[in-house]
């Protein structure tokens, strides 16, 4: 790919090795390109942990009871699954929920939504509707004003997946 075939024709004997080396080198280049962030993001599915890291950095979430994720136990139609995520917080200027992130573990892309709250929210509770490709776990992560990350996980059965095809 890098060494043009012309080299082979000019001196057939000795340059075979060079061509092979060239081929190996271009193989390495291709492998390197494939591992570049932009490409790999499309090729290999991200985990929800990767997606969370992209948003909050290296902080690790801990399981906590203050966050709840309300989902149906069984979703007959994965195209539109209602969910509510709520965090028990005083929502005062000193102590509030900064954001709530929702991830899927079995969709082509793990991110579902990130909600940004303020002390003016009064109540840390958000509802929306999501698509689910198949039966899987849903993860909710609350980012508190002191920087703590609290998570919860729920399993949901999906009868008919909702990611189109």
């Amino acid at each position, binding site marked *: 790919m890098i060494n043009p075939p012309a080299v082979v024709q000019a001196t057939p004997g000795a340059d075979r090795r060079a061509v092979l080396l060239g081929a190996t080198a271009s193989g390495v280049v291709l492998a390197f390109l494939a591992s570049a962030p932009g490409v790999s993001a499309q090729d290999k599915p991200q985990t929800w942990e990767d997606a969370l890291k992209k948003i909050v950095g290296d902080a690790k979430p801990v399981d906590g009871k203050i966050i709840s994720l309300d989902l149906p136990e069984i979703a007959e139609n994965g195209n539109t699954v209602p969910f509510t995520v709520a965090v028990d917080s005083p929502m005062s200027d000193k102590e509030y929920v900064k954001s709530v992130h929702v991830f899927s573990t079995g969709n082509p892309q793990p991110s*579902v939504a990130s909600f940004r709250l303020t002390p003016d*929210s009064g*109540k840390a509770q958000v509802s929306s509707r999501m698509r689910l490709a198949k039966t899987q776990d849903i993860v909710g992560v609350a980012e508190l004003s002191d920087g703590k990350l609290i998570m919860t996980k729920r399993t949901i059965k999906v009868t008919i997946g909702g990611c189109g095809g």
Partner: protein
Amino acid sequence: MTTKPRIKLPDSAKAGDVIEVKTLISHVMETGQRKDKDGKPIPRNIINAFSASYNGKPVFGADLAPGISANPYIAFHMKVPGPGAFEFTWVDDAGVKVSETLKLNVV
């Protein structure tokens, strides 16, 4: 994204009340995962951002991914600081922006 968004506020609220604000907008929320009948991928076009402010102060924001259903419904809460109006904004991947203003009836 042409239709008018639908927003549901309580009929009336008092200052200090925590109210729920429900919003819905028509949008295909094309995931980018689907292919058309010729096998070509259909480009992604989703509403990627929603925000709400009250009297100019941001109260809620959302970054949405293709995992959110078509015609996205978003409901959130706000502690009513006093009389005023909401401004809601939705933006999609094509850069189309829809804004809506709605007064809250504070008694």
